[in-house]
């Protein structure tokens, strides 16, 4: 039981009305169910108030008159109680229908929101993922949508029910005695003052607790991740000491926050009791000394109302915070949904092609191993086909991840089909950035990139990326079997194709030695594999895609040089006649490239093949002879 969630500090929503309206748009076709829910809630609330009100009649007209009679006739009492029982049954039925519908609406709405959020996130540019931590985005799917669900399934019905109960109780009370009602209202401010005083203080304490929790959790995470180092350095005691300090702070903050949260209930209940006594005494006085109260039944019924009156008020005040909390969460979700997706004005498509006897290219239904760019011309409505060769040209390309900081300056380069182009340079020199521009993970700010003569801005992003096989610096594997992971490169790949790709990547051997071979489950980003093995799988994944152009970004950094040489041979066979970009720290990886670009601070400072660069005696030479360090 999380201690009073509505007492947590509230981040206020910016546009409450708009957010609520938008939230209801996701209720969508369940809108009619929602109306039914409201009706059901109203029925239950009114019946419950009516039941209390009927107490007066039951006492005054059906029980008290019978007192002292010799042979009392209970048929009247039986009748009114049957009516009451029937009403309560109806109310229970209404509650059930309400709960059932609410459940459908809330789970359905959440499902729609989650899916839309996920779908939209897939369409966002990479820069979005760079600027948000995973934890932050995860909590959109969990915490924020959960508070929303709570809003739909609890806060909303309870608020409606509280309001209706409050009104009908009020009506009932007024009808019984307006004077007592006024007196009761005079006592109400005490409740409100107490609620808001406690609410404010506990808000502060909960914020302090939240902070302490963050510190303890952060320390735990850091120390668990570095536990091996802790042991190697016999640092256990020191770590324990530091942990104890943080832990103690959490205890102090937590004790204060929780005390306040759990103290509210006894306070409110007993305030209610005291108010009840006051009403009873005043009521009794009025009953005997005036005719402002009609009967004993009226007073008893009124006292019953008074007992129940403070509950909806407490509830409403608590709901208010929950609603603010939920709407703040909803705003965070909608904020992401409102972000503009990755733009794509491309219209040039990648198609399988076949060569006609006359040498021209036409589109083919089946995979031919020959690809073409399908280029429609809006001017005359004609379509031309350009063979995909892997000819990449950069013309004075300038780029920065943020406008203020340029990462690449005036990069010009050309890669001819069948060439192996390598980039070397320090971390941060801009090697990875160049490849990120070719596949349009990011948009260039100046200059032009042409792919087979076509400005890449005109090519549809999906087709552009499909034409480029990539093995990324951070290998990432998905939960699933080894086979599934390789198949990620080509969803309809046969088992033979997968094994062939694994052989090219030199992964076949180790895969066969896994407990279940190709069917071994990988979990947790392939945590059960070594970094080198993960890289081999990533290479196999790219190999099965059989791409026209391949980009290897530090793809073999954790693989020993002997295995690397074997992979290189396999990949050379696969990529014969196609373009390959290689980024590596290790010079042995790039040595046999046709063109090596040495990057420094976002500029190409040297280019040429290995021999030419060595002869040049420049930076590459220094690197090669170990006179200069790459960081």
């Amino acid at each position, binding site marked *: 039981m999380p201690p009073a969630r509505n007492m947590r500090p509230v981040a206020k929503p910016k546009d409450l009305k708009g957010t609520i309206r938008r939230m209801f748009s996701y209720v969508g076709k369940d809108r009619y169910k929602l109306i039914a829910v409201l009706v059901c809630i109203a029925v239950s609330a009114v019946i419950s108030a009516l039941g209390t009100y009927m107490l007066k009649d039951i006492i005054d007209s059906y*029980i*008290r008159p*019978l007192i002292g009679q010799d042979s009392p006739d*209970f048929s009247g009492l039986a009748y009114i*109680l049957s009516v009451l*029982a029937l009403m*309560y049954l109806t109310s*229970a039925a209404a*509650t*059930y229908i309400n*709960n*059932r519908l609410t459940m459908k609406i809330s*789970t359905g709405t959440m*499902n729609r929101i*989650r*899916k839309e959020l*996920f779908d939209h996130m*897939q369409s966002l540019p990479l820069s979005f993922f760079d600027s948000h931590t*995973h934890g932050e*985005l*995860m909590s959109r*799917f969990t915490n924020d949508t959960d508070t929303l669900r709570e809003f739909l399934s609890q806060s909303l019905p309870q608020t409606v029910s509280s309001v209706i109960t409050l009104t009908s109780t009020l009506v009932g009370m007024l009808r019984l005695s307006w004077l007592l009602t006024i007196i009761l209202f005079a006592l109400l401010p005490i409740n409100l003052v107490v609620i808001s005083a406690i609410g404010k203080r506990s808000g502060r304490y909960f914020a302090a607790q939240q902070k302490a929790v963050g510190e*303890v*959790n952060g320390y735990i*995470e*850091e*120390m*668990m*991740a570095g*536990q*091996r180092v802790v042991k*190697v350095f016999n*640092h256990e005691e020191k770590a*324990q000491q530091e*942990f104890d300090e943080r*832990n103690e702070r*959490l*205890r102090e903050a937590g004790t204060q926050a929780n005390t306040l949260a*759990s103290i509210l*209930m*006894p306070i409110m209940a007993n305030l209610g*009791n*005291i108010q009840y*006594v006051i009403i009873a*005494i005043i009521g009794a006085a009025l*009953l005997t000394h005036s005719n402002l109260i009609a009967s*004993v039944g009226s007073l*008893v019924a009124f006292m019953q109302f008074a007992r129940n009156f403070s509950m909806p008020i407490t509830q409403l005040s608590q709901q208010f915070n929950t609603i603010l909390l939920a709407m703040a969460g909803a705003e965070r979700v909608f904020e992401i949904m409102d972000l503009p997706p990755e733009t794509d004005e491309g219209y040039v498509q990648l198609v399988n092609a076949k060569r006609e006897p006359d040498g021209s290219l036409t589109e083919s239904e089946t995979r031919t191993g020959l690809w073409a760019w399908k280029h429609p011309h809006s001017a005359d409505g004609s379509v031309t086909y350009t063979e995909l060769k892997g000819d990449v040209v950069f013309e004075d390309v300038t780029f920065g991840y943020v406008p203020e900081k340029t990462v690449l300056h005036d990069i010009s380069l050309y890669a001819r089909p069948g060439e192996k182009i390598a980039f070397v340079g320090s971390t941060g020199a801009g090697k990875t950035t160049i490849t990120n521009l070719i596949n349009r*993970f990011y948009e260039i700010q100046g200059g032009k990139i042409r792919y087979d003569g076509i400005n890449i801005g005109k090519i549809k992003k999906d087709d552009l990326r*499909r034409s480029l096989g*990539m093995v990324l610096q951070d290998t990432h594997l998905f939960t699933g079997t080894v086979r599934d992971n390789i198949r990620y490169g080509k969803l309809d790949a046969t088992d033979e194709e997968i094994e062939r790709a694994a052989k090219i990547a030199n992964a076949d051997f180790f895969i066969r030695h896994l407990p279940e071979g190709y069917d071994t489950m990988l979990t947790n980003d392939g945590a059960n594999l*070594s970094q080198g*093995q993960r890289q081999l799988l990533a290479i196999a994944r790219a190999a099965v895609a059989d791409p026209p152009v391949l980009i290897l970004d530090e793809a073999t950094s954790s693989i020993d040089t*002997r295995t690397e040489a074997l992979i290189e041979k396999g990949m050379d066979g696969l990529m014969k006649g196609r373009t390959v970009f290689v980024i590596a720290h290790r010079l*042995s990886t790039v040595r046999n490239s046709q063109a090596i670009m040495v990057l420094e601070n976002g500029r190409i400072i040297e280019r040429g093949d290995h021999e030419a660069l*060595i002869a040049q005696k420049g930076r590459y030479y220094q690197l*090669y002879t170990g006179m200069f*360090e*790459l*960081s």
Partner: protein
Amino acid sequence: MRKLFRYAGKYKVYLFLAPILIIGEVVMETFIPQLIAQLINMISQAEETAIDMGEMLKLGGLMVLMAFLSLGFGAGSARCASVGAMGFSRNLRRVLFDKVQHFSFKNIDKFSTASLVTRLTTDVNLTQNMLMMLVRMAFRSPVMFIMAFYWAWRLNPSLITILLVAVPILFIGMGTITRLAYPRFRALMTKYDGMNSAVQENLTGIRVVKAFVREAFEKSKFAKTADDLMDAQRRAEKVVILNAPLMQILMNGCIVAVLWLGGKQIAVGSMELGDLTAFITYITQILMSLMMLSFIFVSYVMSKASTARILEVLEEEPDIESPENAKTEVKDGSIVFEHVDFSYTGAEDRAVLKDINVSIRSGETIGLIGATGSGKSSLISLIPRLYDVTAGRVLVGGRDVREYDTAVLRDAVSVVLQKNVLFSGSIKDNLRWGNENATDEEITAACKVAQADDFVRSFPGGYDMDLGQGGVNVSGGQKQRLCIARALLKSPKVMILDDATSAVDTATDARIREALRTQMPDTTKIIIAQRITSVKDADRIIVLDEGRITDIGTHEELMQRSEIYKDVYQSQQKGGDE
């Protein structure tokens, strides 16, 4: 939960006090309707006899007093429960953290880092909340039940029969709901985790997703996860929502029954009106307390998973511990492997190292070379006893490593791990991990050997620069050199570098090795590397292949006779300058 309770320590007092105070609160709470009944009884006679206002005020005063007492008890128990539960969770986190500090690498391998973190955070939290509820509610409900039953009985024993009908229905109903709901909620939790990991995985792999244009594939994958979650949620809630109408029917049914039977009794004069309303209150209290009890039971069962996960950690035996009468001095840096077999699981057929025999003299420099997965890191992790051998023995300083106090052994054997970790804090703080009492001069000296002094001085703040979590403010090569300096500060007898200079350029690498040779001539140095140049000038080089030593010798010797070594050498020289 019972097993965990002993960790409450001095907070046990509060945890006992809280329920006692609760009893006080409940006694007051159940006494108040009694007073109300008397009030109403007085009022109901108002038409015949004038109300004695003095008597009434006395009654009212008593009631206000009770309300204040009840409030006092309630607030007191809330305070005690908070102090107790928070203190308990503090102690629990403490023993857990302490336990993990005593874990061996093998123990850590068994639990993943992520799972240890959840156990120390989420699971402890859930247990703490459970305990808080337990001390407040678990006593409240039975006491409430007994007291309300007692008063109801005193008021009118004949009406108690209503409960004989209601309570069994309540138990059967709630029991059925609970039994049906529990497995469904477990299933729901799994689905929830499933969605979490689906999103997590997509986020970490987003570049792969985009590079392979698999957005549509990912969307359909997620849609299935989300739908699964929704279905599970509906299945679980479908059962739980029966609770409210069931309670309504029972509660209101009892009220109607009390009105009927009680009304009849009032008519014949065997019951008073006030008693009737009091009776209704007591019946409500009884049913509520029973419902609460079943709710507690459900939460208790649900929290069991967490307590079990916590106990798993606490009951895990650290499998490497210092022996009794442990040796507290390591004589020198000599190392001997005698017929060593090793496997992480203990299973013979998955052995990582097979029959390793080698003897290393103190002060020698040893290179270790082999393919990915050949067992290099496993081999060196046996020297500081990060793992225990499966067969054979490892000797350091002429003694089996299992005879030493582990702290002493690890002080003498310094390892720079492949996966380097720096912690948040300043550079100096991090370096002092090696030796807490190191002077500034010693720190500078170690950094000079590790070729780190120059770049550290170039930082704003120099040795006092903050590294940020995980050492994010320095480059890979710089991080490696800091880690070497940190290990050097231990002034070890054996120094092991596990691929520790992979991001350092060859010239600096050579300078580090040169400095190690001249500054620490008596320290045994073991260097694992992928670059031949890093091991070329070692006294001897060990070639490891699939868990076996295939050759040992100098660079020149190996170039003549070891095929593997030659292969590695050539793969790094191809197209080179020869």
